[in-house]
C-alpha cells in the first residue's frame, strides 16, 4: 500500500497525462466511428439488398485480432497515435453500425406511414421519426463501442501511441505491480465513467414519448 502511495506522489502528473492520452485516443476513435457508422447504418436500411453483406463484412473485420490490426497500419501510417486511432476506429464501427441498422429497422412502420401522411420528406422522417425512436438502441451501440475501445487502447502503447498501456507494459517488463495497477485501474475507471456518462446522455436524448413504453416494447 505504501508503495502505491509513493508511486502516486512521484508519478501523479505523468499518470494524469497518460490517462489523458488514453482518453484522447479512444474518444477520437469513437467519434470517428459514430460519424461513419450512423450514416452508413441509415443508408443500409434504405438498401433492398446488400445490407446483410456489409454488416457481415464489418462483422469479419471485428474478429481480426486487435494487435494484428495495429501492426497492419504501421507500414502505411508509421508509429504513434495516428495508426492507433485508425485501428481503433475500425473496431468502433461494428457495434454502432449494427445497432443503428436494427434500431431503425425496428421502428414501427405505422409511424412512418403517419409521417408520410403528415407530408414529411424523407429527411424529415429520418431526423424526426426514425432517429429519435431508435436512439436508445444506437446509444447502446455507442456505449459498447466506447467501453471496448478504452480497453483496447492499452495496446496503442505497443506502437508508440502512448496512453495507460505504457504503464501496463512497463509493469510487466520490469515486474513492478505498481505500474500495472496504475495502468489498469484508471482504464477500468475510465470505461465505467464513460459508460455512465453515455447512459446519462442516452436518458437525456430519449424522446419523452417512448420513455414510458420502453419497458412494454
Amino acid at each position, binding site marked *: 500500500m505504501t508503495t502505491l502511495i509513493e508511486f502516486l506522489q512521484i508519478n501523479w502528473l505523468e499518470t494524469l497525462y497518460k490517462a489523458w492520452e488514453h482518453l484522447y485516443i479512444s474518444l477520437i476513435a469513437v467519434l470517428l466511428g459514430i460519424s461513419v457508422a450512423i450514416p452508413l447504418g441509415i443508408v443500409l436500411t434504405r438498401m433492398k439488398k446488400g445490407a446483410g453483406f456489409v454488416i457481415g463484412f464489418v462483422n469479419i473485420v471485428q474478429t481480426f485480432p486487435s494487435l494484428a490490426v495495429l501492426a497492419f497500419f504501421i507500414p502505411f501510417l508509421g508509429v504513434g497515435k495516428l495508426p492507433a486511432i485508425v485501428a481503433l476506429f475500425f473496431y468502433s464501427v461494428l457495434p454502432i453500425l449494427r445497432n443503428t441498422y436494427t434500431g431503425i429497422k425496428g421502428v414501427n412502420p405505422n409511424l412512418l406511414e403517419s409521417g408520410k401522411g403528415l407530408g414529411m420528406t424523407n429527411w424529415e422522417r429520418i431526423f424526426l421519426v426514425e432517429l429519435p425512436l431508435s436512439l436508445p438502441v444506437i446509444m447502446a451501440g455507442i456505449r459498447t463501442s466506447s467501453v471496448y475501445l478504452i480497453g483496447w487502447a492499452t495496446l496503442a*502503447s*505497443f506502437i508508440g501511441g*502512448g496512453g495507460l498501456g505504457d504503464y501496463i*507494459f512497463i509493469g510487466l517488463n520490469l515486474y513492478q505491480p505498481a505500474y500495472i495497477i496504475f495502468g489498469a485501474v484508471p482504464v477500468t475507471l475510465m470505461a465505467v465513467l464513460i459508460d455512465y456518462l453515455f447512459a446519462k446522455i442516452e436518458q437525456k436524448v430519449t424522446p419523452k414519448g417512448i420513455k414510458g413504453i420502453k419497458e412494454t416494447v
Partner: protein
Amino acid sequence: MKSKITAKLWVLGIFIFLMLLSGCSLPGLSSSSEDTIKIGAQSMTESEIIANMISQLLERNTNYNTTVIKNLGSNFVQQKAMENGDVDIAATRYTGTDLTSVLGQKVEKNPETALKIVQEQFHKQYGYKFFDSYGFENTYAFTVTKKLAKENHYEKISDLKNDANNLNLGVDNAWLKREGDGYEGFVKAYRFEFGNTYPMQIGLVYDAVKNGKMDIVLAYSSDGRIKAYDLQLLEDDKNYFPPYDCAPVVNEKILKKYPEIEAQLKKLIGTITTEKMQELNYEVDGNLKEPSVVAKEFLQENHYFD
C-alpha cells in the same frame, strides 16, 4: 438424412482430433511433463534464434526433450519464470541488465568484472549458473539516420545536448523506467532530456527512425537493421551504459539432472561475434525467415551437429 448426420459427426470428430493434436505442442500444456527441458526466450529476435539453437543442439546431440517458451516480456519475466520453475534455461541474459535490475547493483563498466559479479551472485543467490558470453554484446545505442547525423554533426551522445529538446525519441517498452541504466540515470549523466519520448515495441524503432517518424531511437546494437538501413550509432561518450554481454543462464539443479546440457551449451560459448549476431537477426527481421530455420542453418554451417 442419416448420411448428413454421419458427415457432421465425422467433421466434429476430425475437429476434436486436430484440437488434441495441436494441444500436444502448446508450450503450456506439454511442458507440464517432467522430462522436458524448458528453454525461455524473450520477445526479441535474437533471443528466439538462440533458444532454438539450444533446443536443436540438445535434441540432436542428446536424447533430451526440449520446448521453447517464446515471447517472455523481458529479462525480469524470464527471471521470475525461472524462479517459479517454468523455465530451466534462459537463452539470453545480459550482464549489464542482470547486474542493475535483478541484482540491483551499481553499474560496472568493465565487462570482465561485470560478468564475474553476475556469475558469483547468481550462483550464490539463486543457484543458477551464469555462463560465459556467447561472444556478442547487445547494448543500448542511440541511433539516428546518417543524414541527420551529417547535417547536425552528431557523432556522440553529448552532441545532442542543445537540440535534444526538439527531438522525438523512440524507445522500447521498459527503458524509461529502468533503474540503474534507464532514462533517469541517463538524464543525470548527460544532463539533458529529450523533447518527447515514445515507448513502443523494440522491433518497430528501426523503421520508425528510417522513415522519419522518430528523430532518434534507442536501438539494440546487435540488430541487423542498423546496418541494413544504414543508420548511425552515436558514441556513448560518458560511458553511461554498462556492458551487455549475452550468455545463457541455467538452473544448477537442471545441470545436475541433465548432465549433458553443460557440454552442449559450451559449444556455443565464445562462438558468435556481434557481427554474426547482427547477420542472423537480419535473416529473421529483414529476410523474414523463421528463427528456428536461421538457428538450424547456423548450426549446420558450423558443424555443430557432427
